[in-house]
């Protein structure tokens, strides 16, 4: 299914497109808002408002995944996707906990901002690939 673009159903193709668009928007908005707040020091109420903006595409991601799971007619593929989502959640928790402890150290430079949502999506994508490879 997800291994080759030609094997994707219209539902899967559409879901991946919307998912990717929301993911990109989340990353762009998160980094932009972070820099904006850091450099421009806006008033507190503006910072609260600005921080909400990157959450909107995250809600979009949740919605598109929910819609996909509700409409996927292939039980086996749906099971693989749900398992992959759980793997993604687990990997995100583990890496986030590790990085949280690591970056608390003042001498460790936080070179690349890693967004949990990106980490989650990459983990889910990798888990789906591995699951499909195991069940090829």
């Amino acid at each position, binding site marked *: *299914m997800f291994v080759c673009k030609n094997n994707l159903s219209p539902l899967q193709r559409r879901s991946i497109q919307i998912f990717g668009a929301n993911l990109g928007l989340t990353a762009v908005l998160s980094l932009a808002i972070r820099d904006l707040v850091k450099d421009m020091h806006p008033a507190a109420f503006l910072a609260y408002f600005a921080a909400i903006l990157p959450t909107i595409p995250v809600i979009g991601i949740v919605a598109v995944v929910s819609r996909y799971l509700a409409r996927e*007619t*292939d*039980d*086996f*593929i749906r*099971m*693989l996707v749900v398992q992959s989502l759980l793997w993604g959640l687990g990997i995100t928790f583990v890496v986030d906990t590790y990085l949280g402890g690591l970056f608390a150290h003042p001498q460790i430079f936080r070179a690349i901002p890693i967004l949990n949502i990106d980490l989650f999506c990459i983990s889910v994508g990798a888990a789906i690939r591995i699951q499909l490879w195991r*069940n*090829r």
Partner: protein
Amino acid sequence: MKNRLRVLRAERDWSQADLADRLEVSRQSVNAIETGRFDPSLPLAFKLARLFRTPIEQIFTDED
């Protein structure tokens, strides 16, 4: 749960992809059911029974 899917498919000279197309599922689903890694839902089991014109009990058997 054991099943005779591979035998029934071979009798008709269908590939896994052929059966998957007829069932409107992925080839991976057919493979997972054949190898016993995944038990199909009731609607899919009925679809298989209709497709092979065989009662469900003759396709799937309880291992106990």
